[in-house]
């Protein structure tokens, strides 16, 4: 429907499980909600950055998602 949007599937579940643990029954609704929130937020950002023109959500998501993912990868507290 919208082409490729990178990083959503990679970042969102990881953040949610970092916050709420990994009990899927508890987290799945939150994953769905926050995924929607993130993509929507990026879309709004893309519409605002160069108003009245639009920037595709995949581009904005690429930047935001990559930054989030790097943060997740290297900001991780090391267990064991």
């Amino acid at each position: 429907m919208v082409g490729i949007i990178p990083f959503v599937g990679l970042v969102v579940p990881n953040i949610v499980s970092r916050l709420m643990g990994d009990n899927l029954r508890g987290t799945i609704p939150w994953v769905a909600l926050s995924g929607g929130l993130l993509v929507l937020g990026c879309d709004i950002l893309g519409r605002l950055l160069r108003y009245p023109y639009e920037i595709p959500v995949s581009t904005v998501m690429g930047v935001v998602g990559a930054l989030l993912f790097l943060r997740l990868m290297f900001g991780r507290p090391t267990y064991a």
Partner: protein
Amino acid sequence: MPDRRLIVLFALAVSAMLAFMTVGLRGNLAFVLELRGLKLLALLQVAISIAMSTILFQTVTANRILTPSIMGLDALYLLGQTAMIFSLGGLGYAALGGGWKFTSEVLLMMLLAMALLWPLLRSRTEVNLMLLAGVTLSLLFRSLTQLLSRLLDPNAFAVVQTSSFANFNAIQTDMNLFGTAVTLAAALLCWRARHVLDIIGLGREAAIGLGVNWTKAIAALLLLVSVQVAISTALVGPVAFFGLLVSALAERIMPTHRHGLLLPAAALIAIILLVSGQTLLEYALDGASALGIVIEFVGGLVFLFLLFFGSRK
């Protein structure tokens, strides 16, 4: 007495160059030879830069799968270019001469590379994490480039397009003299660093024990790699897997860790592959396919092969 394999490689490289200059010659000789000569010069620069930067990078990171382009350095160069056009405006950028343009782009890229890749290289990260970070970083750079070019006005965007349009069929030959000088200087620096590289290949602890200033050496090598990547990207655009292909071949042909042999072998192999490939596609197959695509295909296969079956350390 140079190694016999090096001599064979050298002979092959020379014959590839001769073939490139002579196959299917007709028409106005002076014009054709000048055209081909410029192209050949650019191809040589690309080959040497990619081969040497890949070997350097692999030695510094101590593994045989990472290459500068997998870590997103060429995407970084394009990002720097777009950022410059973004800040100077299309006209201001176009008003800079070829040499100044390239110099400032390289400086910007060095700055970005130091800021973004330096922490990654300095902390001892595992290979897998490094690979993941590299892929993510190059995606980030690419997205940022796209974002910036979306923010540009159409005129400036046209400048971006013309300056990043380079590929093997449309080599940018406007900065040949300057580029050649930079390539030669970088290659010379690599060659002079060959013994230090041998020591760095032993690993961090051993190198420090043998008296190498690790931080300084790694920083200098990262800068050198950035310059070389900038040259090749400026000339033919991003080439993802060529460096990997070349270094893998060089390791097979020269099973040694001595950079005095490895560096020239890699450069010669790169020259042979690029020049003969271009000759074949352009004059024998009448430009039926693009060299870039063939190289990415073969190089990608090599990458997968190395990932799955590992390589000799």
